[in-house]
Structures are given as C-alpha cells and as structure tokens.
C-alpha cells in the first residue's frame, strides 16, 4: 500500500466496501427460506461450528436470520436514502427561485428538524399504517432536511457567484445555467450526501422497527430480532443480541466508510492529500 496514493487507496476501499455489501445483500436474498425454518430439536444452541451465530428458541438459524435481516435493511436503506436525497435536491434547487418559495422551503426544513427524528419517523410510520410501507415512508420523508439545507446553501452561494451573474447578463437561458454551472457543482455534494444518508436510514429503520413501529414481527428484520432477544437476555442467551447487532454495526460502518471515501474522491480541495 505504501506506493499507492490517497486516491487509489480510497478507490480500492470504496470498491471493497461495495463488494462486501453486495455479497451480504445477495446472501440474505438466497437464505430467505432458510431463515424461516423452525426445528425444535436444535433450539437455544449457543454458537458452534454448524450454527455460527447460534439458534433461537424456535431453533431458527441466527446466521441466516441475521443475513436476511441485513439484506432487507440494506434494500430499505437504498430505497429510502434515494427518495430522501432526491427530495432534498428538488427542494434545495427550488430555493434558487428565491422569494416566498425559498422562505417556505427553509421554514419546512426548520419545522422537520424541530421534531426529534425518531418521533417524526414514528409519526409518519403510524400515518401510513406501520409495516413495510410505514417504515419506508417514515425514513424517506424525514431524512431530507440536512441535505436540503446543504444544497440550499450551495445554491444560494452559486447564485451570487460572479460567473453565474456574468452568464445571466450575457443572456444565457436559465436552463443552460442550471445545466452548465449548477449541476457540475452540485453533483458531488449530492452523491456524497446520498451515500452518507444510507447509514442514518438503516439505523433509523432498525430503531423504529425495534420500537414496534416498523416491519411486522414475522419478518426477520434486525430490529425484530433484537427486540425479541430482549426477552431472553436475563436467561443468558447473549448470542441472540450480540451477533445480529454487531453485524448491523459492521454494515453501517461500511456504508459510512464508503461515503467518506467517495467524499475524498469527489472533493477537489482534498485531491492532493
């Protein structure tokens, strides 16, 4: 690694993280069936060679359940982060129109940021009747404000930039300005913001499911696994909580690392580090 420069190392890390995440998602999809198999002859096994993560009180393989749950979490994370990032982009760009539109957008940002995040996700999930739809809507509709604020700031700054004002005076159309000057500037911000939303989205999905406002208890989601494990903690079945949680942390760390490396690659200021 010594003669690798920062950019190559960043790219390698990025691809590695991506590979692992894809593998987890694929494995989870394939193991979906196995995660539901109950077998009372092998219940409550602590981790061993055959069952690396142990089994639960219904004899279900915890490794398969964890992978299925993670895969579900990742897919929900992709969906919700994508929706909320697009929402943020649209609202952030709308502030470029200035006047009352900008006031409304920034008021909305303040409003949504004023409600504690978990509470907001809970409320939206309730409004959509909980379950898969509820948790997706809740996470997707509550994560845009911070990115929208960043994009709004950038847009306002760009609007005042000399080269944009010059272009306006030269009679370049608004659409052209948006495409030639705004887009190249905003795209890196948007991409980084998008990837950095995954970890939050996944964590909030798990948290809300854990509280009982998300995915239903038949689905092997990480939040469900962990909330079920609470009933067995005092009887010493530590593996039910430790391994699924640890895997979730690992996935989130990978997403965060991906965002960090992407930021390094796209940020012109840190190219030479």
């Amino acid at each position: 690694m010594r003669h690798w420069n920062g950019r190559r190392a960043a790219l390698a890390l990025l691809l590695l993280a991506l590979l692992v995440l894809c593998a987890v998602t694929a494995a989870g999809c394939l193991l979906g069936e196995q995660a539901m198999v109950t077998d009372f002859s092998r219940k409550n096994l602590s981790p061993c060679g055959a069952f690396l993560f142990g089994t639960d009180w219904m004899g279900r393989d915890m490794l398969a359940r964890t992978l299925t749950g993670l895969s579900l979490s990742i897919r929900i994370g992709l969906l919700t982060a994508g929706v909320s990032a697009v929402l943020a982009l649209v609202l952030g760009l709308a502030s470029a129109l200035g006047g009352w539109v900008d006031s409304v957008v920034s008021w909305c940002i303040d409003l949504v940021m004023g409600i504690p995040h978990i509470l907001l996700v809970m409320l939206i999930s309730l409004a959509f009747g909980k379950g898969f739809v509820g948790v997706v809507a809740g996470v997707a509709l509550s994560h845009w404000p911070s990115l929208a604020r960043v994009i709004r700031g950038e847009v306002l700054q760009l609007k005042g930039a000399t080269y944009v004002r010059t272009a306006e005076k030269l009679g370049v159309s608004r659409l052209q300005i948006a495409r030639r000057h705004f887009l190249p500037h905003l795209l890196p911000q948007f991409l980084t913001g998008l990837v950095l939303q995954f970890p939050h989205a996944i964590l909030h999905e798990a948290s809300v499911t854990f509280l009982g406002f998300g995915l239903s208890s038949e689905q092997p989601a990480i939040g469900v696994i962990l909330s079920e494990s609470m009933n067995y903690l005092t009887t010493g079945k530590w593996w039910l909580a430790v391994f699924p949680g640890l895997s979730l942390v690992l996935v989130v760390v990978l997403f965060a690392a991906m965002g960090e490396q992407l930021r390094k690659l796209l940020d012109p200021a840190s190219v030479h580090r």
Partner: protein
Amino acid sequence: MKHRLTFTGKKLIRMLLLLLGVSLAAFLLMSASPLDPLQTNVGQAALGTMSQEQIAKLEDYWGVNDPPAQRYLGWLGDFVRGDMGTSLLYRQPVSQVIGQRLQNSLWLMVFAWVISGVLGLTLGVIAGANRGGLADKLIRGYCLLISSTPAFWLALLLLMIFGVWLGWLPIGLSVPIGVDAASVTLADRLYHAILPALTLSITGVANIALHTREKMADIMEQDYILLARARGESHRSIVLRHGLRNVALPAITLQFASISEIFGGSVLVEQVFSYPGLGQAAVNAGLGGDLPLLLGITVVSAALVFGGNLIADLLYGVVDPKIRRGVAKL
C-alpha cells in the same frame, strides 16, 4: 440593545409559528393513520361482544366521529388555555403525565447533555488540533464506530454486561421493585439512572466531537494561526487562545442542536431499560393510539428543541463581540 431586542422578538415569533406548524403536522399525520383507537385498546374480540350503544359511547369518548378540522381547532383552543386534553391510556390529564415523565427523563437528558457536551468538545478540540496524529486517529475511529452503532443495541450490550453478567447495576425501571414509593431514596433513583444516562452520553459524544474536530481543523489552517506560530507561540497556547475562542460559536450551536438527538436517543434507551420517562410514554402512546398524549409529547419536545436553538442564538450575542455590538448582521 434595541437591536438585540428586536432580534429576540423576531426569533420568538418564528419559534411560535414553527410550533404551530409542528402541532398541525403531527395532528394531520395522526388523523391520517388507519389506527383505530377502539380496536387497539378494546381488542377485536371484546369489540365483537359489545352492543351498538356501548360502541357508540366509546367512539364518542375517543372522538372518532368528529371531523379533523374541528378536532384540531378544539385541541388548539384548549392548548392555548393550558389544557392539553386527557391521556386515553393513563386516564390522567396529558400535562400531568408529561410533567411526571419529563421529571424522570430530565435526570437522564441533562446528565447526558452535559457529559456529551464537555467530553465531545474536549475530544473534538484535541483531535482537530492534532490532525493526522495518533490522538486524532483514535478519537475519530471511536466516534465513527459509535455513530454507526444503534443506541438501543449499545443499551442492550451495557445491560447485558453490567446488569446480567456482573450484576452491578439494575436491569431496568427507575426505582427498586416492591418498595413503597415514599421510601425510595435519591440514591435509588440515581442508581437506576446510571446505565441509561451512560448509554445516552456515550452516543451523544460522537456527533459533537466529530463536528468540533472538523471546525477545529479548519481553524488550525487559518492565517492567524500561521502568524501566531511564526511569532513563536507554543502549540498549547495557540489551541487555548486562538482555537478555543474561534470554536466557541460552532460549539454552542452543536451543543444546543444536540437536544433533539438526545431526546431521540432517550426514546430508544428508555424502551430498553423500561425507564418510565417521556420517551417510553411516546412509544406507548404511539402503539396504543393515544392521540392527545402523543400530540402533547411531540409539541413539548419540539418546544425543547426550538427553545434550545433560541438560547444558542441569544448566546451568540454574549460570546461574540461583533454580534454584541450589532456590527455583524445575522
């Protein structure tokens, strides 16, 4: 002075408008919910055995049939007069439930808020001032790991280690089981609050430290730092005299912005430790379809958040001489 007063007045009006918006948004979300308060609380089976009259009476009690606009305006009118309605789950006035619960939660939240603020600032300044060094790498690694860890899992982990394995600390609740309410001592309460407060502090530190680090690292690249260095000031004195002063404003913002996050964390942590605080009440209210209580908690928590932002804005004036003299426009 006059400048400060108008500034405060404007901020207050904006805050009230935002609170109104929050209550309306929360109300709309709840009335859009397909959750039937009758079914959740009475149960499908019991509902089937009831007579039409009984059902109608219950529907009247839960206010199922009134149009949403009427219900909201009714709620708002009462709220302005200080009446937040009656909790359907606890059968007590909402203000009373929130008051009690908030008292319990405040222990945790204030403790976690202070600890995470002080520790976060310290760690952030250390890391930012020595960017790329060993301390920076360790602190950054810790922060990234913690911010990737769900608060409720950390709570589970601590509960397992200190509550179940070592048996040093209680596994839940805010008072000992089977003890008369009157004979619960302050020590008992503190003893039960240790684990939840610890969990909240550990998670709160990460965000504040990471952001402070970022600001501090920016400051350390400024020209005045270079000049100070050229003048021969020691690293220590540069950090204390120039770094800390310049990081003060963002630190205040971060500290008061973290109220929202700590409240969110307390919802999860209280659920794990069965700690009877505001967060747990919010979860119960949501799952049980207790609309007045959930609405009340949302408004109160939003008021806490906006109040924090207001205090941060006002503190700017105290801390920054430029703003104090009305030179800089906000």
